[in-house]
Structure formats: C-alpha cells, structure tokens
C-alpha cells in the first residue's frame, strides 16, 4: 500500500449513495406511521381521516426514496 494514501475506498460508491438515500425516507416513514398510531390511539373515531393524511405522508416520503434508488442505478 502506498504510504501517501491514508484512506482509500474500493467498490462502488453508488452503494453508499443508496444507503444515504435510505436514511431520510426511513426516518420519514417512521415519524408518519408513529404519529398516526398515536393519533389513532387518542381518537379512534378519526381513523379514516388520519389514514388519508398518512397516505399522503407515505406517498411523499416514498417518492424521495424512489428518486434516491433510481439515481443509484443511473449513476
């Protein structure tokens, strides 16, 4: 190993990109689902409305993930 190189990365950097792209949506979907569970536990009669809002939250979060994964394959 060349003593001048202190650190080197081998392999495909896109994989690291996919890992980074998975963090955001992972946190996002966790917050969306967790808060919906909390709200449904507090007011079960509002489940229908909460589901609709959650559906929108999931859709936005997963779009971010889709774009991240798609760019991973394009790069």
């Amino acid at each position, binding site marked *: 190993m060349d003593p001048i190189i202190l650190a080197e990365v081998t392999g495909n950097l896109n994989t690291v990109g996919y890992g980074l792209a998975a963090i955001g949506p992972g946190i996002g979907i966790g917050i969306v*689902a967790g808060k919906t*569970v909390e709200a449904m*536990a507090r007011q079960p*009669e509002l*489940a229908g409305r909460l589901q*609709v809002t959650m*559906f929108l939250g999931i859709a936005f979060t997963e*779009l971010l993930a*889709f774009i991240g994964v*798609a760019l991973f394959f394009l790069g």
Partner: protein
Amino acid sequence: MTANKIFRTALIWGGVIAVLIGVVGAIIGWNIDGSVGLTSALIGAVVGAAFLSITAASILFANRYAASDMYVTIFFGVVLGGWLLKFVLFLVLAIVLRDQPWINLLILFTSVIASAVATLVVDTIIVMKGRVPYTAPSVAGDGTENAS
C-alpha cells in the same frame, strides 16, 4: 370508520395517469432510442405508478379488518410491510433490468420518476378534494359494522 372511497378513487386515477404517462413516454422514448426506448418508457410508467399505488391498495386491504380487535396492529403491519416489500421488489427489478440489452436505463428511470411524481400529484389532489365525514352509517358487508 374508514375512507375506502378516497383510496379507490386514488387507485383508479393513478391507473389513468399511468396510461397517460406511458403513452407520452413511449412516444418520447421511441424518438430517442427506437423500440428499446419505447419498452423502457412503458415499463418505467407501469412500475412508477404501480409502486405508488401499492400504498393505497394495502390500506384498502387492511381496512377489511376494520372490525377486528387487532385492527391497528394489522393495519400498520400490512401497510408498512407492503411498503418494505415494494422497495425490495423495486431493487430486485432494477438489478435484473440493469444489464438487459433491451433496456435504456436513463429512459426507464426518468419514466419511473415521472410516473411516480404524476401519481403523487393526482393522489394529493384527490385527498385535498376528498371529503371524509367524522361519522358514517355502516353499510352491511363492508367490514365496518363494529368498527370504532
């Protein structure tokens, strides 16, 4: 009480918009890369819309158990399980299609993103226009008779 009507509308309009994106994408893909571009654009449109619609479909499926005592558990198990399964499927599909000679990756993923964004826009409009009442009379056979 559930909001199945909105999810059904979202599924139907998601399908309509996927067909529209597929037609437009196919024309653009054909002009860029011939039949390879056309195939890629069509597959991308179907994948993008189908994967975004899985959420609505999983919620509709989970709402069949609205009368169950375990409803909340079943609901989140089905919806989040479907979400995870969808991403695994998407990754497998992308890995399989990546090296195929009849696929143009740029057109495929542009089409996936276009289709997903379009479906999201349609979903947002439907949710904003959809009216979910606080209470609703139960309809026999919809599984919500004893739902709280």
